[in-house]
């Protein structure tokens, strides 16, 4: 039909967005919308959007690994799991205050990132993909078989946290919690992208040998990306645990990792607005097309294939060159 006029319209918008001033306006309008959305939304809409912000954090975290450093991680759900279980175990079994478990969750996911990334990041990219996949499965099987993680049924009855005396228990509370976390995640991603480290990731992604010849520690820089990505997952996991008050190993399957990857690929690897759109698409699509039911993953997989074949840079248009 008129796809060409559509794409040129998108391109025009993208061009318009290149100007700092315009971008700021759009950003402010979007932030205001996000801020005041709960005033007009019902509980169901609130829940869906909270979930979308939650996936935004996860996708931005994986984007650092896949989009910035160009490493295919097929076990990202493992870091999310480590964060969720750390908080879950510490609050429900040791009575630790939720806010104190956050540093622990971050620390544990970082350690997990170092353990798996340290020895494997020098491997070829396809081997790395398989290793991360195996690692993701190992974490899930361990969670299913240990006593401290509650076995196959998982942990239940995780306490809700208090924030200056208010118990965070309502949908609206968590909407704002995840909105703020998503904003922080965007900010951190943006700052990292435009830094010495961000450039180093791009050098390594484009040409490892040349990057090394320029004095860049290939493995070290990748490990940095891996660990920072893991931290995003850990934080998201910690808050996920108290929002749901229950976690089970089946949340952290290979499909979950693939879903997060899809969000990153869909919007556009390495592009923050693209990744946010990808995360929203991931959450909103099954809500809009409820009839799909179990065919959801099939449709997602087909979308992923089509994107890779026809628009590998994702939905979000490329910046001008």
């Amino acid at each position, binding site marked *: 039909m008129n796809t060409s006029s559509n794409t040129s319209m998108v391109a025009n918008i993208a061009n318009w967005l290149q100007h700092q001033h315009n971008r700021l306006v759009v950003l402010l309008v979007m932030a205001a919308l996000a801020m005041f959305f709960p005033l007009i939304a019902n509980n169901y809409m609130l829940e869906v959007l909270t979930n979308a912000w939650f996936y935004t954090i996860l996708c931005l975290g994986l984007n650092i690994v896949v989009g910035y450093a160009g490493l295919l991680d097929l076990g990202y759900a493992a870091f999310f799991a480590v964060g969720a279980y750390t908080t879950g175990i510490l609050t429900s079994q040791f009575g630790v205050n939720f806010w104190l478990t956050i540093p622990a969750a971050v620390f544990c996911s970082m350690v997990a990132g170092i353990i798996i990334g340290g020895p494997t990041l020098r491997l070829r990219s396809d081997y790395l993909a398989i290793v991360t996949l195996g690692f993701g499965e190992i974490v899930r099987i361990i969670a299913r078989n240990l006593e401290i993680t509650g076995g196959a049924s998982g942990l239940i009855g995780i306490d809700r946290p208090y924030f200056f005396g208010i118990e965070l228990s309502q949908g609206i509370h968590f909407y704002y919690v995840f909105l703020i976390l998503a904003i922080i995640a965007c*900010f*951190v991603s943006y*700052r*990292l992208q435009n*830094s*010495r*480290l*961000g*450039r*180093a990731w*791009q*050098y390594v992604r*484009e*040409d490892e*040998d*040349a*990057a*090394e*010849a*320029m*004095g*860049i*520690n*290939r493995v070290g820089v990748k490990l*940095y990306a891996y660990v*920072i990505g893991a931290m995003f997952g850990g934080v998201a996991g910690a808050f996920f645990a108290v929002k749901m008050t229950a976690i089970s190993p089946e949340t952290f399957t290979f499909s979950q990792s693939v879903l997060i990857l899809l969000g990153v690929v869909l919007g556009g690897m390495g592009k923050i607005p693209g990744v946010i759109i990808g995360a929203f698409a991931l959450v909103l699509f099954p809500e809009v097309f409820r009839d799909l039911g179990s065919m959801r993953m099939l449709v997602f997989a087909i979308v992923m294939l089509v994107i890779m074949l026809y628009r590998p840079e994702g939905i979000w248009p490329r910046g001008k*060159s």
Partner: protein
Amino acid sequence: MALLEVEDMVLSFSGLEVIRKLGFSVETGTIASLIGPNGAGKTSVFNCLTGFYRPDSGQITFNKRSIRRLKPHKITQAGMARTFQNLRLFKSMTVLENVMSGMHCRTSVGAMGAVFHTQSQRREEELIRLVSEECLSFVGLLDKKDRHAGNLPYGDQRRVEWARALATKPKLLLLDEPAAGLNHDEKQELIELILHIRNELGITILLIEHDMGLVMKVSEKITVIDYGKKIAEGSAEEVQNNPKVIEAYLGSEDEAL
């Protein structure tokens, strides 16, 4: 004083010796060349020096320090920079961003600095930009700094590689066939640039080259290798008249029909 000293270097790929007991040295402040017929092992020598291959045995001393077991990035940090025979630019990035990669190993701010934009981070970013622009203006590409590296003409892309190597602030610059693919005028410019780098910046240069005219013009010392072995060494004149060199390049009389 020798800046780089190679002794008894041996490199083999699955049993086949590519470099056999090679020894040579590069004096501080000189322009030296490594020449030899196709397949003599020149690029392998470069790859050993820069840490991309690990030689089986032998010693490599750079700036009074053994570098045989160092990784490539450590060697660059120690002050040895290289260019590649077939260009290896970061093609989708701008010229300036390409050159900024060279400053990576001379700076240190990490993730925290990047996120919080600390004062040292801002100062460092400024420095990276400044040095990179200096390097670009040195090779005469400053006006093209915002172009995408992959879109430049071939000759300019070579210059980007040079600027990038210079941004690592090297003591020794290794040039792998810098004249390949250049026309006559560009070669003249190249000779000037090489001399310029040595004279103005005081950087020692070691180059591999096929273009004998260029080698003879700029080199103060030439090492000739064949089948991974050194067969001659000396000034341009000495090497040109050495019968072994002539034989290596033209074949011995028995083989010639």
